[in-house]
């Protein structure tokens, strides 16, 4: 491989800064019409080449990224046996490649945390499919690793970017962020999610030869193989994801967290409404879950498939608030506020070395709220959450879902 093909964006940025002082930089390096300079060419690896692989790669929004490696535990998805140059079965080997700037993670969620942390430790920027994690402590570990290693993180959901450009949402965001309205107890927001379920009657089936099932399971408990447990349908088993509540719920809840300025906190009370008990293995139906925040905001995550007659029927008093809801003094304060920090996309975040709009901290907070909803559904009772200590209060059993021990040799 020639030197021009192996130069990386970050190495270029470092060397170009030094060289610029003493040399004339050629036109093709600077870019311009018809030229893409190395400084804008991002190199990446796709980890998890299943149903969301190509979509996630495109969703990064990078200009002509160069895919240098592909990794999956299913040999069919990497075109045969791994060569550990461009085709990998083990993500840890991908991290050894110094010429990869970005990893795009589209594996099942029970793998997200360990791969994100390994990527951060290897100094690679991260694009991670939603939901960010399988359980709450993983999100804190990712956010800490991203901060410690100064890498960029973006979650694979984007509606918050349009909310941040919408005047009404921005006004609402400002009012909540700066506490301009004291009584928020009537504010109720619906976050819709689908509600598909897992199967409770799966028998043991032979593992197909192309699949490294032990590596597919990774940190998840060992359970015998069945094709319904892997390759997308894994979403509907508690060991690997949280069903559609975390799957589609991430799309609807993430923008709400921005609009209502909850990116650094979480609900303090979580009340479920669902059939009970849930199956120990397969995700079941749920009706809705009320997430109540310290300022009175309530987010209602609704499933919709349980029983139509049991739809959430509490009167919806108010959703968005605006200047019209403030008194004279409040309106003056609102008008005097500086605009909120703009949310920047992944590509710009990589280029400017700032955190992206869907960064690790906010994604952790959003995903935590959804995990809490699932924990309440599973234990079948109202739970209380401390968003500062990130612990469930006064319920030892429920709190055991916050940091679930992984199957060795994997651990946070």
């Amino acid at each position, binding site marked *: 491989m020639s030197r021009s093909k192996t130069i990386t964006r970050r190495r270029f940025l470092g060397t170009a800064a030094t060289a610029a002082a003493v040399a004339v930089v050629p036109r093709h390096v600077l870019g311009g019409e018809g030229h893409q300079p190395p400084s804008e060419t991002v190199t990446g690896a796709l980890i998890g080449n299943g149903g969301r692989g190509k979509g996630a790669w495109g969703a990064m929004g990078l200009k002509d990224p160069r895919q240098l490696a592909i990794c999956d535990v299913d040999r069919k998805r990497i075109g045969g046996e791994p060569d550990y140059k461009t085709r990998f079965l083990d993500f840890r080997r991908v991290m050894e490649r110094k010429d990869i700037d970005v990893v795009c993670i589209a594996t099942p969620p029970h793998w997200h945390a360990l791969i994100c942390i390994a990527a951060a430790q290897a100094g690679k920027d991260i694009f991670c499919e939603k939901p960010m994690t399988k359980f709450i402590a993983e999100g804190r570990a990712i956010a800490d690793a991203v901060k410690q290693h100064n890498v960029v993180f973006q979650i694979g959901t984007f509606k918050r970017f349009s909310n941040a450009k919408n005047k009404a949402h921005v006004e609402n965001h400002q009012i909540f962020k700066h506490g301009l309205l004291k009584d928020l107890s009537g504010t109720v927001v619906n976050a819709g999610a689908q509600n598909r379920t897992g199967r409770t009657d799966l028998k043991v089936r032979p*593992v197909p030869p192309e699949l490294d099932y032990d590596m597919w399971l990774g940190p998840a*408990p060992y359970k*015998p*193989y069945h094709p319904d447990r892997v390759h997308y349908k894994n979403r509907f088993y508690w060991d690997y994801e949280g069903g559609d509540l975390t799957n589609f719920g991430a799309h609807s809840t993430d923008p709400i967290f921005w609009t209502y300025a909850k990116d650094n906190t979480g609900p303090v009370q979580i009340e479920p409404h669902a059939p009970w008990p849930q199956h120990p293995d397969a995700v079941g139906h749920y009706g809705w879950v009320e997430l109540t925040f310290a300022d009175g905001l309530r987010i209602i995550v609704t499933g919709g498939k349980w029983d139509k007659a049991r739809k959430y029927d509490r009167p919806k008093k108010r959703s968005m608030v605006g200047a019209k809801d403030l008194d004279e003094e409040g309106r003056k304060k609102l008008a005097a506020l500086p605009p909120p920090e703009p949310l920047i996309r992944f590509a710009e975040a990589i280029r400017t070395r700032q955190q992206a709009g869907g960064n690790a901290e906010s994604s952790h907070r959003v995903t935590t709220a959804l995990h809490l909803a699932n924990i309440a559904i599973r234990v079948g009772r109202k739970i209380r959450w401390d968003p500062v200590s990130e612990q469930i209060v006064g319920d030892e059993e429920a709190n*055991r879902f916050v940091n679930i*021990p992984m*199957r060795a*040799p994997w651990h946070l």
Partner: protein
Amino acid sequence: MEPSNTPAAGTTAVGAAAVSALAAARSSAAEPSKKVADVLDKLPADDYQTAGRLCTALLEGGPAVVTELVNLVGDEFGDPNGVKPKYALHGLAHYASRPGAEKSRAMLAETLAAELAAEHSDELKAFIVRQLQLCGRTREIPALAKLLVSDRLCNPATQALVAIGSPAALKALRDALPKAEGPRQVAISQAVELLSRK
């Protein structure tokens, strides 16, 4: 790391034969009593009040009902006859662990721990261990620690011990470590490290 596609009981020829023999031996006992059958028919319930009443009815049956439910789950993973009993036992693990229900939780956990010494398949024991990961406390540590010598059950047992997380759990893991080899040694060492951090 464990080898790829680690065979577990139920996936190897020997394991499958053992499970079938156990299942056959237990087939006559795999009929629920009327009291238990009445509850199983109603699970899962549509509301928490009803579910609570059903769980209370099962817990009032004491260790005998818990043992009956364990036997009804069956030795084979995915046994269709075991679906409702799994709902019931898993529900009990949550219900009895609710704040303020210590007596019920202690009875359930103690009975489940005793079942780990009974003649069940590894898959059924793994299921029991996962319930103890939720409702187990210090008292269940010795029963879980005995599983650290099992290739199939060592990992779930370490996870349950880490979840229980007391100095007694750490001691049990440390005591087991010198005799462990291979993947069991890795699992136990890791659990020791995790608990030592707490």
